[in-house]
């Protein structure tokens, strides 16, 4: 019998303040997994952007719609799934925020930040049209135990 991978499930309503709860849980998980603070901040920002998109654009801030977040801790990778109840969208239709004509636009950077701060990102759309964003980040290897005993001069 194999041991199941640990997973953390968070269900939030479609309110901006609920995003903070996901942020808190994700930050704690990343710290626990040994991510350096700078990297953890970036991954948390990627997760925050995905959840904000789900709440605002997917669920359109409708109070009865749920955003589900699952953090699955694998042997090598942390996988994060963010699922909304919206009508889906085309991620390729989002213009490049670095293009000169878009640089001063106030929106359109969320997906760019997600792509930048995780190792892999995938968008899936289920039969109901809901969007599932999948983010993956390599878990840092634990520091090797020091072999100081053999190095000690007697």
């Amino acid at each position, binding site marked *: 019998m194999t041991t199941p991978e640990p997973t953390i499930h968070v269900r939030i309503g479609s309110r901006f303040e609920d995003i903070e709860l996901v942020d808190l849980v994700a930050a704690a998980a990343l710290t626990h997994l040994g991510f350096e603070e700078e990297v953890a901040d970036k991954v948390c920002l990627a997760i925050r952007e995905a959840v904000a998109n789900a709440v605002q654009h997917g669920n359109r801030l409708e109070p009865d719609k749920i955003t589900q977040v699952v953090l699955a801790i694998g042997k090598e990778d942390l996988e994060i799934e963010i699922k909304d109840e919206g009508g889906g969208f085309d991620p390729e239709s989002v213009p490049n925020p670095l293009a000169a004509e878009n640089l001063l636009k106030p929106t359109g950077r*969320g997906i760019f930040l997600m792509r930048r701060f995780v190792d892999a990102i995938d968008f899936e759309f289920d039969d109901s049209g809901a969007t599932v964003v999948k983010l993956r980040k390599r878990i840092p290897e634990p520091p090797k135990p020091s072999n100081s005993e053999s190095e000690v001069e007697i």
Partner: protein
Amino acid sequence: MKTSVRNREGITIIDLQGKITIGEGDVMLRDAVHEAVAAGSSNIVLNMKKTSKMDSSGMGELIAAHEKVKASGGMLRLLNLPENILNVLGVTQLITVFDVFDDEDEAIASFK
């Protein structure tokens, strides 16, 4: 997020403390800048020394603040950017849009 406003040599300095993120901090930043401009401030410094986090909505509000101040005939400066915020502004190339300072005296002097 908390904001507080002070004045130095005719320049409005808005001290920002906390997160500039969707739904709260972004709105407070917008309100603080709009109120300052409505009160007649044309040159504004955003002191971000105690800003802990910023997401894409916060970045959008920074751009909107920049455009709002510019439209009123003034200039906006950013002061004391924490490393994590400097990083995201660099990644998104927004750092090229703003004048950024590490020293308040220099930020104030830059308007003269």
